[in-house]
């Protein structure tokens, strides 16, 4: 029987905030009270001065396995997630082979079972992500897949997207997540189309390449009654569309990635592909709109879009390098530094965006709290005021492509518990 | 011809003092006599002025060449061709300091079989003349190269010597010899300037 006592912290969950110790036995929360004395032999985790929240859930992580193990494996990605306070990751299906059949789902789940973070598999909407035929959505749903996406590619055929939405209505809890990028409008682009791309001489992707698809899928959601989730929203126009759709009562949800509320396209001026991502970094106005969307409930979750790439890929010329940035280990700190610190959100709302809202979207009932007796002990203990410097060489991810190298951020994970097991203690991964 | 740069003295090290006039060794008349004498010597040595080409080194050397040509024309009745040579790209200190070209190189015709008389105002280490010889040879093969200078101030670092000298002027290494011409400086004359240490000045540092 393993007993863990989390002592001295302030618990924050959907129900509110309170000073409390937490006693965990065999992976389940046993007691939550102002003072708890643990039995002898219990592992004591010091949470003095720290916040204890339900573990975070990332709706959007690229774990690269199978097929891209140069960049990351399920094990290394999960370790990075645990260090970032995550207890569940939804693995994106643009692997090689893609997750469009039972065999690959099973492989991912099997590898995830021994990982220091719960790994949930997503599934493709179309076979091979080719955008032509539906993937076996029902079969994948039967294996536990709830989020379906062709991420990396947009389902460009409106007719096909409509049929997918209709079909998925029969699959309880299923949500179709769209990577919004009209292929013709975005074609040839490598960064945001605008003043910067014009000076730098880099082909751009206009904001409309994203918002056109958002508008289309909102209409299709209305037509079919299906559930649409918008991945990595990056533009003011998209945020406005989602806000209006929600106001009309449509079942649409959205996520945003930390780089889209912290970085802008001006950073591409050095032609460093570390700043190349899809959707691309946008303008100040877009960043402001994303922040507002996170604050007012238009955007439901912060999702990292953690996208590891090996160093030599990011050393290629800007237009040849693959897009993508790391995100798991910096998400909490960026949220606190850029959203909570300046007062755009309070901590409970930030944690809602990182933890219980994505948990609900992904259908992960075990995650996201509340922190109460009987609940599985998926917890994150973090210092909301600890300042640390981002050092890519000391990250758990196999890759190093973070755009925040050298930045000082506020907010650091101290401990992470996965089903009661401390997988991170004092900011060190235990396995 | 482009105006010569204002007198740029060799850089004193920071805080080491400033330049003061020590002596004015030639007035306008002295300068004129020296030029006339050198012009006669050139014609005498070369048994006439027929194959002679005067090539002045930028910047004041070009003025020397022109004045020599004028003098030769006046007593010999021969128009000796005058050229201008910029040796900037041939200098041996090109890697050590900023070297900017001083003016367009224009040599009259072919120097093949001519007697090229290089003209300069002051002969010092000899490095400029070494560079000038390399430059001239790139234009053709002269029958002979001779050197005419208004002042030889010693301190040679290369085995170079002048054929025609206006005045021999022994100097200290850290002195500066300045030749002034009406065309470039507003008066004719030769001066010696010295670097004065501020501590040695009567009355203390300025």
């Amino acid at each position: 029987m393993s007993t863990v006592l989390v002592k001295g912290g302030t618990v924050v969950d959907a129900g509110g905030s309170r000073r409390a110790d937490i006693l965990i036995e065999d992976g389940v929360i046993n007691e939550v009270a102002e003072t708890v004395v643990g039995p002898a032999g219990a592992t004591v985790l010091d949470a003095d001065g720290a916040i204890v929240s339900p573990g975070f859930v990332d709706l959007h992580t690229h774990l690269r396995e199978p097929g891209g193990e140069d960049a990351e494996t399920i094990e290394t990605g999960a370790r990075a997630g645990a260090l970032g306070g995550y207890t569940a990751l939804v693995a994106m299906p643009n692997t090689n082979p893609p997750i469009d059949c039972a065999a690959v789902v099973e492989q991912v789940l099997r590898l995830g079972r021994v990982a220091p973070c719960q790994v949930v598999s997503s599934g493709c909407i179309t076979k091979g992500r080719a955008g032509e035929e539906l993937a076996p959505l029902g079969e994948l749903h039967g294996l536990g897949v709830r989020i379906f996406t062709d991420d990396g590619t947009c389902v460009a055929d409106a007719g096909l997207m409509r049929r997918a939405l209709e079909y998925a209505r029969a699959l309880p809890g299923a949500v179709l997540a769209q990577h919004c990028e009209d292929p013709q409008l975005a074609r040839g682009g490598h960064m945001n189309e605008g003043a910067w791309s014009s000076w730098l001489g880099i082909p751009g992707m206009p904001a409309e390449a994203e918002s056109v698809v958002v508008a289309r899928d909102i209409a299709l959601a209305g037509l079919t009654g299906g559930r649409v989730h918008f991945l990595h929203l990056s533009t003011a126009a998209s945020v406005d569309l989602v806000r209006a759709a929600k106001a009309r009562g449509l079942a649409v949800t959205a996520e945003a990635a930390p780089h889209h509320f912290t970085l802008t396209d001006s950073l591409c001026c050095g032609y460093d592909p570390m700043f190349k991502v899809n959707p691309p970094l946008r303008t100040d106005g877009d960043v402001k709109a994303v922040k507002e969307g996170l604050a007012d409930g238009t955007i439901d979750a912060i999702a990292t879009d953690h996208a590891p790439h090996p160093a030599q890929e990011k050393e290629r010329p800007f237009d040849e390098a693959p897009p993508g940035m790391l995100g798991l280990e910096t998400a909490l700190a960026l949220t606190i530094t850029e959203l909570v610190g300046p007062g755009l959100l309070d901590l409970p709302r930030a944690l809602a965006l990182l933890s219980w809202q994505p948990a609900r979207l992904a259908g992960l009932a075990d995650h996201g709290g509340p922190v109460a007796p009987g609940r599985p002990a998926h917890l994150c203990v973090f210092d909301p005021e600890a300042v640390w410097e981002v050092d890519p060489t000391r990250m758990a991810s196999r890759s190093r492509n973070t755009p925040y190298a050298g930045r000082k951020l506020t907010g650091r994970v101290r401990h992470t518990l996965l089903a009661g097991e401390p997988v991170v203690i004092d900011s060190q991964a235990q396995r | 011809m482009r105006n010569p740069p204002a007198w740029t003295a060799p850089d004193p090290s920071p805080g080491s003092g400033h330049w003061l006039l020590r002596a004015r060794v030639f007035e306008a008349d002295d300068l004129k006599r020296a030029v006339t004498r050198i012009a006669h010597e050139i014609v005498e040595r070369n048994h006439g002025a027929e194959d002679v080409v005067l090539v002045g080194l930028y910047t004041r050397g070009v003025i020397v060449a022109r004045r020599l040509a004028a003098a030769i024309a006046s007593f010999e009745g021969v128009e000796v061709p005058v050229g201008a040579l910029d040796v900037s790209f041939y200098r041996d200190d090109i890697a050590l300091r900023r070297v900017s070209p001083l003016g367009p190189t224009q040599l009259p015709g072919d120097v093949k079989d001519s007697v090229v008389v290089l003209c300069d105002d002051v002969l010092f280490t000899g490095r400029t003349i070494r560079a000038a010889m390399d430059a001239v040879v790139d234009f053709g093969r002269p029958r002979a190269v001779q050197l005419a200078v208004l002042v030889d101030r010693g301190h040679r670092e290369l085995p170079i010597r002048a054929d025609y000298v206006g005045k021999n002027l022994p100097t200290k290494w850290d002195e500066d010899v300045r030749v002034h011409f009406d065309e470039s400086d507003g008066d004719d004359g030769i001066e010696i300037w010295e670097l004065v240490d501020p501590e040695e000045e009567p009355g203390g540092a300025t």
Partner: protein
Amino acid sequence: MKHLLGIDDLGAEGIAEVLRLADSFLEVTRRDIPKVPALRGKTVVSMFYEDSTRTRLSFETAAKRLSADTMTFSAGSSSLRKGESLLDTVRTVEAMGIDAIVVRHKSSGVPQRISGWIEASIINAGDGWHEHPTQALLDAFTLRRHRGDSFAGMKVAIVGDIKHSRVARSNVKALSALGADVTLVGPPTLMPPDLEGWPVTISYDLDEVLPTTDVLYVLRIQMERQQEALFPSLREYATRYGVTRERLARLSADALVMHPGPTNRGVEIDALVADDPRSVINEQVANGVAVRMAVLYLLLGSGEGRAA
């Protein structure tokens, strides 16, 4: 100054210095022995990932005229084929002991990236759509030989595919730094998407701009652009924006016509323009070596305490 990645590296004063140096080097190129020992012992490597015989030869000639040693990697050579990364290639080249790399690449930003990886001086011979600084410099040099030092108020019209043109971007920077008034002319689809902050005027009507133009700078139209629906056909482009005989007639007799070459006769420019006395296209080419000598000399020649 260590690198020439773009015109901004020079500024108005730097441009003026390059042009002055180019005067001297032009004289050197006209000698019987067109060579000076200024860069003796230096090694200049050309890495042309994008083929361009003219520009590459122009740079190599410039280096040789300065007595530098040269090495060439061009698009066809095996060393530049895929497989070895850009970073590995430049590091290998640097290890051979070189002073400068002249690089042309289809991707914008490559010279800038390379400058961060190695110690040698980097000269941009054209990167993607971004800049081609030596072209703008030789264009300015050509103009100066006709119009003198003052470009203030000179009306320059750059016509053609501005969007994809590194020559246009460099020229906009150089000409406006020198005080000229630049107008960009072309169809809206061939203009950069966002011209905020550009020191230019825009016009979609060449005929309107011609009568007041002092310098007409014509850009190439690449045949491939037609496939991208940027204009309906080459014929329509030539009709609306081609520099035809009729248009030349409406250009002032004192105006100059320029083109970075090579020309697409009958598309952006009529074949007869080359014979028009206002055309300085051939001079542009001839001035290229002197200007590139000036750039190489500026970066490698006059040492300012560079490490031996």
